[in-house]
């Protein structure tokens, strides 16, 4: 095995185990912290794939921001911590959905990127320059649409969180 394959194995095992820990943790705060480890592993896998920009965005946005939002959300709730309150009786349904999603993704990825073509992707390295070129030259409209999406999310959060003084 090459160094990349070793690194991938380590990341996959750590990411997988911490993902299991996320759903089995008794304390929701611990679950959120395990999620950090999972997301970091995913970031590491992106790095190995040569998607440098995506990897750092993953770490900056998901680890740096989304998990913070999770923790804020947990601090807002009066959620009692404990096995009984976090569990519900839909494990089999959950397992079924999980297996279904996994099978669907494996099928789609296999169709889109067949193993025979693996050599084509071997030397792929998406630089930040290339990402910038494609966003600001070819995909300007989707980029501006993202700002409307963010605006809608921001206004939605304010409307939900604000205490209305007037009425």
């Amino acid at each position: 095995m090459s160094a990349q394959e070793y690194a991938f194995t380590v990341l996959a095992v750590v990411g997988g185990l911490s993902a299991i820990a996320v759903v089995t943790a008794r304390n929701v705060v611990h679950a959120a912290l395990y999620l950090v480890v999972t997301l970091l592993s995913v970031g590491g896998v992106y790095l190995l794939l040569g998607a440098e920009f995506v990897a750092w965005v993953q770490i900056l946005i998901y680890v740096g921001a989304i998990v913070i939002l999770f923790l804020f959300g947990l601090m807002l709730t009066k959620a009692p911590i404990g096995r009984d309150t976090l569990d519900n009786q839909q494990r089999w349904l959950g397992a079924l959905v999980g297996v279904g999603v996994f099978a669907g993704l494996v099928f789609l990825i296999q169709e889109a990127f067949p193993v025979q073509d693996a050599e084509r992707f071997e030397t792929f390295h998406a630089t930040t320059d290339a990402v910038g070129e494609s966003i600001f030259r070819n995909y300007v409209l989707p980029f501006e649409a993202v700002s409307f999406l963010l605006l809608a999310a921001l206004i939605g959060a304010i409307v939900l969180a604000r205490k209305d003084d007037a009425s």
Partner: protein
Amino acid sequence: MSDYYSSYGVVLAVLTAGALLVAVAFTTARLVAPNAPNREKLTTYECGIDPVGDGWSQSHVRYYVYGFLFVIFDVESVFLFPWARVLESIGYAAVVEMTIFIGILAVGLLYAWRKGVLRWA
């Protein structure tokens, strides 16, 4: 491509050195330090004052708006990195594109300000 991986080898080495530093420091402290706990010592340290209440307390929803504002502008700032890389080659068009993008988000900030969620009352 091998340059790319070897440059991240340096990052990996720094991470390993950092983890070792913490591990060695904590292990040494555990081995060397005398251990004589009592009830007082085992209470949570809270600025030297006796801790009040539970570790789990509910916070006000207004913190969430600040968290959310942070996430929105974090996502915005991510786009600034590739933008800065191509600014020189694309020129004024890129400046206009980014101005529109930030302008639309600034409307959201203006809304938050006008609705008074930024005021700490």
